[in-house]
């Protein structure tokens, strides 16, 4: 059933899918990759954002992307709060923060799941927008517009974040903070505030990522569990904290998944993409662009 045409299509769709994966993972690349916070509740916040977008779309008919943008400030604040609690309870006491943090964030994730269920019920939800359900044609070939939207937004998001982190003082401080807090303090920066701010950004980004999530597919309250593996894999495969690596890793996964889905047995897709992750780690334990 192989044909050049199919392969090409699979690659194109895979790149688009990969960009979507990048968008939902890039916040984690900051919070986990750079700040060392074992944020297993990242996907829970992501799904929460999707529900926020759903609510705005449902009751005020706001475009999902705009809705995503509109809730970013709120998520920024969530991020500040979440980090504050994490800091006060773990980092400040300094004991085994990483491992205990995992349990902590699992707890947070469960709480978010239940709050969503209590508020929205367990049924799956989705949004409507003009670009959902339509596609662009190139002859026989068609590309779903919602995927193009996800692609463009994801690309913009990662590029912006990458530039911010490498070119600004704040960005550099964010990249330094987990390596040596006291040293950063000696540079005249307050590491706690920097981390908090960075965590805020990482969470704010989820507003937009959440919009993409619900644009691409419907959401349900426990969807976050399916994304824990995926997002962490992207971030780790990328090399911790590397934003451009995140994009690359996500695209590789997306393309691999898409090719397997199109040309081989779809049921093997997860095995293949996660085996790729293991392969990458076996060869480059620090990830693709890790330092």
């Amino acid at each position, binding site marked *: 059933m192989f044909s050049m045409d199919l392969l090409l299509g699979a690659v194109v769709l895979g790149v688009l899918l990969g960009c979507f994966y990048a968008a939902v993972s890039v916040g984690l690349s900051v919070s986990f990759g750079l700040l060392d916070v074992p944020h297993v509740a990242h996907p829970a916040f992501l799904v929460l954002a999707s529900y926020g977008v759903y609510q705005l779309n449902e009751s005020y008919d706001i475009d999902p992307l705009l809705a995503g943008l509109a809730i970013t400030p709120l998520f920024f604040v969530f991020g500040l709060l979440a980090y504050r609690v994490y800091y006060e309870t773990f980092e400040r006491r300094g004991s085994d923060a990483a491992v205990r943090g*995992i349990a902590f964030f699992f707890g947070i994730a469960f709480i978010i799941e239940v709050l969503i269920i209590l508020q929205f019920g367990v049924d799956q939800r989705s949004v409507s927008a003009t670009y959902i359900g339509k596609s662009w044609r190139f002859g026989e070939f068609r590309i779903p517009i919602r995927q193009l939207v996800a692609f463009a937004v994801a690309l913009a998001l990662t590029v912006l974040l990458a530039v911010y982190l490498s070119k600004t003082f704040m960005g550099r401080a964010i990249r330094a903070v987990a390596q040596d807090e006291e040293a950063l303090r000696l540079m005249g920066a307050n590491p706690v505030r920097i981390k908090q701010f960075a965590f805020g950004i990482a969470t704010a980004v989820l507003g937009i990522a959440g919009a993409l999530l619900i644009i691409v597919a419907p959401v349900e309250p426990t969807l976050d569990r399916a994304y824990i593996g995926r997002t962490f894999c992207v971030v780790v495969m990328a090399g911790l904290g590397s934003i451009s690596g995140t994009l690359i890793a996500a695209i590789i996964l997306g393309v691999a998944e898409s090719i397997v889905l199109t040309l081989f047995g779809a049921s093997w897709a997860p095995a293949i993409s996660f085996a790729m992750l293991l392969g990458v780690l076996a060869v480059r334990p620090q990830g693709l662009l890790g330092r």
Partner: protein
Amino acid sequence: MNKRSHSIAFWAAVAVFLVAVLSMTQIVRNEYPFFAGYVILQFIALAVAWSILGGYAGYVNFGTNAFFGVGVYTAVALFKATGAPLVVQIAAAAVVGMTLGFGVGLLTLRMRGIFFSIATIALAIIIETFVMNWRFVGGAAGIQIQRPPVMAPFDSYVKMLFFVQAVLVVIAIAIARYVQNSRIGRGLQALRDDELAAECTGVPTLKLKLIACMISGALISAAGAPAAMYLQYADPSSAFNLSYSVSALAMALIGGTAHWIGPVLGAILLGSTQQLLAVTISSEVNVLVLGIMLVLFVVGAPKGIIGLLRPRYRLRAGGKQ
């Protein structure tokens, strides 16, 4: 107390525990305690097994569900193919779990910290995918299993499973205790702090990690094996449920990883709360309570329950009692 009298006390306690369990199966008629008790014992075994690698060596295994599922499906496959008895299923699961642990170790233990954790998540998904495509054990559709008749002195299969799981718990604890008190424990602790320095001080880090990984894997798979007979049904999404990973980790942390008793206490607390919530609150709110408990315990008891009980207990794997 010196080491020897400690040992005597420990084995005496074990004997008392097993005798109590056995007599309970003979005296108590109501089966529910055995159903619920089995689940709690299973979690104790998982948490103790997890902490051998996750607590002592600091390698946080997210793939408890992979080992658990492998245990379940080893039992299923063996039972379906040969009708092997329960003990053989468990032994086989332990061997397969150990082999898997060895493989995982070779493949991933050169990865540091969180890379290892992520690799274990990946592994769980890969193995689950394999099982889903393995028609002999039912694939994704799952498989129903007919239990063989129960053996004397038990009058019900679940009581027997309860006793068997209690034995597994004892084995897990005995091994964890041995590891903790032997030089393996100190070696694991050293490599947890600094692998290169440990190597240069003579600690065979890779070997110790492999050993820890194999022991932990074997115990988790063994604890999972009876689940096939307990449920009389197996399907990949239940057998490889992420909640096994979360629970094992959370229970060990809530109890404290500095001493083998920590995971035991954590599992008893969290496991029985879960059982209790399932039959009392019994709605989404039980997940909420679980979440809040997790948060409160890791926040309020940074050194785990053992840290609360013995305030001066140092947060330290393999620390002497």
